[in-house]
């Protein structure tokens, strides 16, 4: 294969990646629902559940902040990704000389940072108004945990986005996948007398380890950063496996009508 020569050199990928992050960040910031879901819901939950108490429980802050973070990294990111693909925006980018991984990574990095910010706002509100004790070490531990957790959830959403055939079913599909996981994690309150097997399942999914890691960082970081190893390991496995699966299954193009036509034709042939 020969490549055209004699033209100025292509822009370096670091510049392109930072351009993509700025672009995606700008789009997210101009999406009011992203902020309402990620920040509004957790803060309202905080206000309504703990307004009577002088000091909010660490577990409550961890649960609500993770709720906002995961809604953003999973639902908002996933639904927007399906919409971008089905409307042809991904395909348009694929037609340019932007490296594919650059667009892919740009979206993931942006949503991980944005979701981390969203979770951090809930923690800061709790620290400012509800007596949460927050040291610098704890804050750093929480940010690291948030980034890892957001990456894991965003990667999982990217995988699911490739399975969703149309934008109309994106929101129900993501909600259906999300709420069982978040409910058994205890993010919105502990379920009384959870069976052991349900706890074991929750321990392996990325919500409960994220909540436990955030609570751990908030509770035990008086001297330095202390993150629960097992929970961090579970999140890291989800993040790495999710990234690999997302890269392998990522679809740039809308589902083609011809594919449906093809399927129909095949059925007819089979029937005949």
């Amino acid at each position, binding site marked *: 294969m020969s490549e055209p020569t004699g033209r100025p050199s292509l822009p370096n990928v670091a510049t392109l990646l930072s351009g993509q992050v700025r672009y995606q960040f*700008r789009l997210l910031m101009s999406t009011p629902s992203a902020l309402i879901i990620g920040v509004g819901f957790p803060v309202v939950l905080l206000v309504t559940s703990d307004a009577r108490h002088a000091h909010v429980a660490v577990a409550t802050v961890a649960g609500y902040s993770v709720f906002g973070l995961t809604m953003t990294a999973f639902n908002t990111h996933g639904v927007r990704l399906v919409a971008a693909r089905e409307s042809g*925006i991904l395909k348009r980018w694929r037609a340019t000389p932007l490296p594919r991984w650059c667009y892919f990574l740009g979206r993931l990095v942006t949503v991980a940072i944005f979701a981390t910010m969203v979770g951090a706002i809930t923690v800061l509100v709790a620290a400012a108004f509800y007596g949460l004790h927050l040291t610098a070490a704890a804050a750093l531990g929480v940010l690291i945990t948030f980034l890892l957790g957001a990456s894991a959830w965003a990667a999982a959403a990217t995988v699911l986005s490739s399975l969703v055939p149309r934008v109309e079913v994106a929101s129900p599909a993501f909600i259906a996948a999300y709420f069982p996981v978040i409910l058994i994690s205890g993010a919105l309150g502990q379920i009384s007398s959870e069976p052991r097997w349900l706890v074991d399942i929750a321990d392996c999914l990325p919500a409960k380890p994220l909540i436990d890691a955030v609570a751990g960082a908030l509770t035990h970081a008086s001297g330095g950063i202390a993150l629960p190893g097992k929970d961090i390991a579970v999140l890291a496995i989800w993040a790495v496996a999710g990234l690999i699966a997302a890269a392998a299954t990522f679809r740039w193009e809308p589902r083609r009508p011809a594919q449906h036509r093809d399927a129909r034709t095949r059925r007819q042939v089979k029937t005949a």
Partner: protein
Amino acid sequence: MSAILAENVTKRYGELAAVDDVSFEIPAGQIVALLGPNGAGKTTTIEMLTGFITPTGGRVRVLDTEPRHGGRAWRASVGLVMQSTSLDADLTVRALVSLFAQPYPDPLGVDQVLELVGLTAEGNTKVGVLSGGQRRRVDVAIGIVGRPRVLFLDEPTTGLDPEARRQAWAGIENLTATGTTILLTTHYIEEADHLADRIIVIAGGQVITDTTPHELRTRAGASTIRYELASAASAADLPASLAGHLEADRRTVLIHTADVTGQLDELVRWASAHQLDLGGLEVGPPSLEDAYLSVINEPLASKEDSHV
């Protein structure tokens, strides 16, 4: 080296051949229109040439590269305006075009691009509030911002009003002045006639004809003579040879003929004999639309016959 090459290209979806043994070669700098009815295989052909679809059979090359394996440098040399895509509504036109200019090594200036597509006044307008035609021009702006050597335009002026369409044509013509090779699909015969050096008609996934607009027009054979009877004239006075060409309104004589001189002579002699003025007489070349319709109907009709 040809800029675009398709050799015996086929794309099948199960039993359906969307593109069936299509071959053509486009030299650098030429504008070629791919004409055909809906479902003819035009977009599938473009998608194979831009690397979005892998052909089931045959070979495609663009700038001597197999599109499916074209790297960044190749993509920087190839522009694409797709048939229907969305744009990020919250960005301004200028911001969006600047953004899409980033991955290219030598992009056109944003102001230059906006001028080319007639969107200078809308540079600071958010894409979401633009009309459909203006958005289509943003599509074209994004397609050309990288200064492509080969440009694929999939129905670039669909939805544009006549004035906007002419602006887009002017922009496309400006590009060809710099040597850009263009393959465009269109439903508009006049667009193909105005822009293209060459027309490839495709129907049922097959190339029906590959020729120049002039050649295609002459294939229709007949020039047109049109005369609306003067108020003093009566259709009953027409000689039989002319009366046979009367339209349903019984006032318009419409003659499709290869013998323009002979038919005109007869009409002039009849008008002289009846002391009638021939003001409003029209003599025109064969219609490209008629020629196009005749070539796409022939194979379709023969295919239908063969299925019976």
